[in-house]
C-alpha cells in the first residue's frame, strides 16, 4: 500500500500513499515582493509506483522599486492587491483546470512581511469559501526545500537556503528540517540588495542579479570582514565594510568611471597597461569582492555542516541560489568532497507559487488541512517548527 514516492531510493518507505487519481493544488505565494501563483498535479503514473508530478502553471509578478529604494510592506501589499486577481486567473487559465477540480489551496503562512502575507491569505480564504476547497498553510522555507527536492530529485541533501530574508543550512532528520547554521544578523539577499542600493544599481530584474553581472567585470579583491562562527555566519560586518569602501578616496562611482573612460579614450595608447595598475576601486571590484567573500562564507558553513553530519549532496534553494557564481563555488567544494550540487533555475529558485502548491499538496496527501480559524499569517515561522509528516 505504501509506495515510495521518489524513485531514487529502494529501501525508503515513504509515508505518502500513492494517489488513486489526479490531485491538484493551487499555491499562492506573497511573502515578499514577488507575487506567485501556481498549479501542481500529482497523478499516479501508468507504470509502477511512481507519482508523477507536473507543474501545470507557474505565474509570477514582481514588485520592482526604483534604484536606491527597497520595497516597503504597505506598498508591496498594495502591489499584491492590484495584481493577485489577474495572476490567479492567468495561472488557472494556463493550467487548464476548473475550480471544482482543485483538491486544495495552499498559501504561505509565513515567514515573511506581514501585510503582503495577509493579502495572499485573505484571497486564499475567499477562494476556499467560494469554491468549498480545503486550505493548507505552508511554511515558505519548507516550500523552497520541497520544490528543490522535487525538481532536482536530490534525495537527502544538505540544504542551503539563501534568499532575501533567510540564510540557513538545513538537514533533514526525524521529520523535521533542522537548522544547523544560519545568519546571526541579516540575510545574504538582504546584504546584496542593500549594497546594490548603496551603489545605485537597478532593482530590475533583481538587485542581486545586477550585482552578479557587475561582479564579472571586477578584478580586484578588497579585504572585507569575514565572519563565520562555527556553522553560523554574520553578514552585517561584511556589508558595513564594503559600504565603507564607497567612502574611500580611491572609490570611483559610476559617474567618475564614465568620466575616466572618456579621458582614457583620448590617451588610450599610452596607458593601456596603466589602467590596471591604477589605484582605484570600482563598483565592479566591490561587487566582485562582496560576492567572493560572502559566498566563500556560505560555502564554508555548508561544508562544515556536511562534515558534521556526514552528508554528500547539497541543494541550493532560494532567490540567491540562482547566482551562478555561488553554484560554481559550491560545485567545486562538493567535488572536493566527492559530492554533488543541485540547484534550480530562476523560475523555481526565486519565490513562486508552485513551491507552495507542492509543499501544500504533500501535506494535504498526509491528511493535513488548515481550518479557517487557523489561517492567520505569521511573520516569524521557523523552518524547524514544521512537522514534515510526508517524509520517512
Amino acid at each position, binding site marked *: 500500500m505504501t509506495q515510495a514516492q521518489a524513485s531514487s531510493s529502494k529501501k*525508503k518507505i515513504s509515508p505518502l500513499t500513492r494517489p488513486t487519481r489526479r490531485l491538484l493544488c493551487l499555491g499562492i505565494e506573497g511573502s515578499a515582493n514577488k507575487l506567485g501563483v501556481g498549479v501542481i498535479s500529482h497523478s499516479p503514473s501508468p507504470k509502477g509506483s511512481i507519482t508523477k508530478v507536473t507543474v501545470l502553471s507557474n505565474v509570477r509578478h514582481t514588485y520592482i522599486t526604483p534604484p536606491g529604494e527597497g520595497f516597503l510592506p504597505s506598498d508591496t501589499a498594495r502591489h499584491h492587491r492590484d495584481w493577485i486577481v489577474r495572476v490567479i486567473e492567468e495561472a488557472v487559465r494556463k493550467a487548464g483546470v476548473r475550480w471544482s477540480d482543485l483538491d486544495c489551496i495552499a498559501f504561505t503562512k509565513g515567514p515573511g512581511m506581514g501585510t503582503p502575507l495577509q493579502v495572499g491569505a485573505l484571497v486564499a480564504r475567499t477562494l476556499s469559501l467560494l469554491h468549498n476547497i480545503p486550505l493548507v498553510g505552508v511554511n515558505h522555507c519548507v516550500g523552497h526545500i520541497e520544490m528543490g527536492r522535487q525538481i532536482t530529485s536530490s534525495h537527502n541533501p544538505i540544504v542551503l537556503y539563501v534568499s532575501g530574508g533567510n540564510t540557513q543550512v538545513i538537514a533533514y*532528520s*526525524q521529520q*523535521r528540517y533542522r537548522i544547523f547554521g544560519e545568519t546571526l544578523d541579516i540575510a545574504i539577499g538582504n546584504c546584496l540588495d542593500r549594497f546594490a542600493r548603496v551603489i545605485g544599481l537597478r532593482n530590475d530584474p533583481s538587485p542581486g542579479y545586477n550585482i552578479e553581472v557587475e561582479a564579472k567585470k571586477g578584478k580586484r579583491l578588497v579585504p572585507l570582514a569575514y565572519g563565520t562562527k*562555527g556553522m553560523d555566519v554574520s553578514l552585517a560586518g561584511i556589508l558595513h565594510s564594503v559600504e565603507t569602501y564607497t567612502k574611500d578616496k580611491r572609490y570611483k562611482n559610476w559617474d567618475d568611471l564614465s568620466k575616466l573612460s572618456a579621458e582614457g579614450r583620448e590617451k588610450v595608447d599610452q596607458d593601456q597597461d596603466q589602467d590596471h595598475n591604477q589605484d582605484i576601486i570600482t563598483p565592479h571590484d566591490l561587487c566582485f569582492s562582496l560576492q567572493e567573500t560572502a559566498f566563500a562564507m556560505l560555502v564554508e558553513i555548508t561544508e562544515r555542516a556536511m562534515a*558534521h553530519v556526514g552528508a554528500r549532496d547539497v541543494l541550493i534553494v532560494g532567490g540567491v541560489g540562482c547566482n551562478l557564481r555561488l553554484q560554481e563555488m559550491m560545485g567545486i567544494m562538493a567535488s*572536493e568532497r566527492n559530492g554533488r550540487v543541485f540547484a534550480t533555475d530562476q523560475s523555481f529558485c526565486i519565490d513562486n507559487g508552485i513551491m507552495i502548491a507542492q509543499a501544500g499538496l504533500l501535506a494535504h496527501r498526509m491528511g493535513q488541512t488548515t481550518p479557517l480559524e487557523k489561517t492567520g499569517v505569521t511573520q516569524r515561522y521557523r523552518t524547524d517548527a514544521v512537522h514534515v509528516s510526508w517524509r520517512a
Partner: protein
Amino acid sequence: MSVATSPYSPSAYYIKKGELIKQGAEARVYSLPSLFPQPTIYNPSSSSSSSSSSTSAGSSNPKPNSDLKSRSQHGGVIIKHRFPKQYRHPTLDASLTASRLTFEARSLARAAKYGVVVPKVLWVDEKGGCIGLEKVDGWSVREVLGGGAEGEMEIDDDEEVELDKIDSQNALDGSGTGVERDEQGEGEIEGVNEGWEKIRALGVSQDQLMRSIGSALAQLHSTTIIHGDLTTSNMMIRLTPNSEQPFEIVLIDFGLSSTAQFPEHYAVDLYVLERAFASTHPRSEKLYAGVLEAYAQGLGPKKWKPVEIKLKEVRKRGRKRDMTG
C-alpha cells in the same frame, strides 16, 4: 591529493606516509602511528625479547607493535593539512588559511599552558598549511551520543533502522541504555556504541559526561580563549586509566578560535554549541542543561553572572530565536 608544500618539506613527507582518516570542513586529517620511521629491529643476541614477542602474538609481528602504539599516548600523530580551497579566491584563501593555522597553534599552546586538556602541538608549517598534533585516542562526543543526522544520512532513509535510532535516543534521554546495547549487533553504528559502552562500563553517566564538558569549557574560557566552533564533533573523550576521573574531555579543532574578554563572546561561543547540540542530538537536548550548570560552577559566580545575562540576550536576538507570533 595535491600537496601544496614543497616535496621535500617534512609536512609533505609525513602526509605521504600518513593515512587519510577524515576530510573535515577545512582540512584533510592524516594519522601517523609515530613520527619516526618504523624500525626493523634485528637483534640476534637478545633471544628473550624475540621469544616473548613470538609467544604473545604467534607469527605475526605487527600485532604487539600496534598494541604498543595504541597504549602509548604520545606516539600517535595527527596532521591537519589545510589544502588550498579551489572555490575560494586565492588571496582570500591564503589569508584565511594562514590566520587560522596560527590562531590554532597559538590557542592550543596557550590553552595547554593554563592546563586545559588539548592536543599537544608538535610542529607548525604555516607555509605548507600543516599543523602536526598529538593524536587523541578516544571517541568524539557526537559518536558517543549517537548524533542523529549522521546515521540517517548513511543509512539512506531505511525506515526500520531510523525507528531503532529513535528508540535508542529515547533510551539515552532517560537512564536506561538497554536499547543502545541491543543496537550494537547491527554493525552500522558500531562505533557509536564502542565508545559509549566503554565509558558506561567505567560507571560514567550521561550527566557526568555533560558536566565534564561544561567544566572543560569553563576552563578554556577562563584562559580568555574562544573556541569559535564548538560542536559535539569537536570534543573528544579520552580514557585516563591512571587518574581519579576515568576519562577526560579533550577539546580539538581550534581553527576558528580567538581570544576575547567580553562576556558577549563567551556567550556566543556557548550558544553555538547549544544550537549544534539541539540540531545534532534533538532528543537529548535537555542533557545540555548539565553542560551549562557545570560551566557556571567552573567559572565561578562572579564571572558567570555577566555571561549568563549575555547568553539570555544572545538567545533572544537575531534570527536564532524561536520565531512565534
